[in-house]
């Protein structure tokens, strides 16, 4: 944040909050990466790790809440400091939800693995997961680098995930119609895809918050949206 506060411990308090956000961001990235890898490789041990990581994520969020509330009570932050603290509380909420969604994907690993999972069935999910992972890691990096323009772009990039989700949805639907024995696995994969899509939405929220923290102005409310499944879902 450039110059230092007259009260040095104010800087330390703000620094601790910003460190927690980057820790949580890193953890979120590792959980999303781990969950999808576990899913695609039917790796139960890795899935377990992701599930237990979620407890760490929750604890970090609680710590951040405590620190932020205490800082507001003690220091009455103003302007960019105020935006940073309030923005951190909100970003931590989104990161915590990303953790939950990653855990949810990890929990399905056992179930999907048991049923027959043709390799090509999960290929599209792999592609989608890579898109999501880039977004999760990117948002934390750009926030740390204080690059507002990159955050605005990153927020718009969520559209690619939405488009991919729509195509995964159609693809899985096709597999299920072709062979009803695919239904169990495909349904689980569909939930996984939906979770990935939701993670993308949380990244969008984080990018919007981070942009506000850095610039003091909000990104325009309208963003291109391409999730057509909501409109055309039960078309049969």
């Amino acid at each position, binding site marked *: 944040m450039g*110059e230092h*506060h007259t*009260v040095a411990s104010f800087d330390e308090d703000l620094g601790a909050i910003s460190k927690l956000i980057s820790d949580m961001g890193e953890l979120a990235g590792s959980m999303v990466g781990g969950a999808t890898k576990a899913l695609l490789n039917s790796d139960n041990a890795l899935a377990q790790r992701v599930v237990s990581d979620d407890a760490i994520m929750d604890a970090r969020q609680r710590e951040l809440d405590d620190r932020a509330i205490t800082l507001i009570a003690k*220091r*009455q*932050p*103003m*302007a960019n400091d105020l*935006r940073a603290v309030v923005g951190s509380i909100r970003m931590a909420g989104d990161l915590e939800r990303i953790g939950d969604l990653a855990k949810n994907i990890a929990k399905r690993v056992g179930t999907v693995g048991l049923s027959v999972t043709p390799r090509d069935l999960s290929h599209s999910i792999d592609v989608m997961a890579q898109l999501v992972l880039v977004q999760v890691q990117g948002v934390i990096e750009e926030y740390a680098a204080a690059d507002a323009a990159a955050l605005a772009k990153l927020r718009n990039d969520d559209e690619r995930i939405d488009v991919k989700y729509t195509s995964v949805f159609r693809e899985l639907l096709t597999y299920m119609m072709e062979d009803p024995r695919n239904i169990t696995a495909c349904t689980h994969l569909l939930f996984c895809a939906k979770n990935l899509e939701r993670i993308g939405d949380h990244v969008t929220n984080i990018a919007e918050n981070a942009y506000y923290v850095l610039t*003091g102005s909000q990104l325009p409310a309208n963003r291109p949206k391409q999730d057509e499944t909501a409109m055309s879902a039960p078309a049969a």
Partner: protein
Amino acid sequence: MNIMTEQSLENAVGDKMNAKSNEVIKMRGDKVGVFYGDKQALFDVNLDVRLNQVTALIGPSGCGKSTFLRCLNRMNDTIDSARVTGKITLDEEDIYDKNIDVVELRARVGMVFQKPNPFPKSIYENVAYGPRIHGLAKRKTDMDQIVESSLKKAAIWNEVKDRLQEPGTGLSGGQQQRLCIARAIAVSPEVILMDEPCSALDPIATARVEELIDELRQNYTIVIVTHSMQQAARVSQRTAMFHLGYLVEEGATDKMFTNPDDKRTQDYITGRFG
């Protein structure tokens, strides 16, 4: 629900437009400069004070905010070495014009100081003094009326109504300050200047004065100098930031405290000033 939306949206837009057109400039500073002897304390300040709004002047010590405040009712006249340049208007009338009666000006632009300074007289006399010298009350009952309504407007009537003849100096600090506000109100000013009115008060007395400022805004225009950023954020609609004798930035308070334009403002309000 949907039927309402369009109508209420229209109303909201209408309200906003009205609010804008109501922003009348009550006082205007035009290239105001102040010299104490050879030393210049204020440089080219252009600042508007809007009708029925609270304008907060903030900035570090020695930045010129109190100096500017004191120009608004010519309190700097009382300092021999002080010289004011530029132009200050009240309702578009130059208050430094030689035809202006300074006593009358100070009745129109009242002042409340940092330290409560009641006269060593009764509570009643503290409030009655101004109206009396300005000849605002013909009869005793008129004066009683003015004293009561002033004390009521200053939100202290209930605490002092049974002891109006006791000395004003016997009240608590917070009560004394509200008595001083009642005294300022008694001569029906249009503008009230407040120079750190709460810095000698405890938090509860401060809260009461702040609540009072918000109520007074309905009928008066207020300019307040404060060292408390939170207070400026709470009570004012406009904030002006001074530094080293210059006006750095002026704007809507909500914006000034969440997203100021000037780096110096940001550094000052966030506590980064060297």
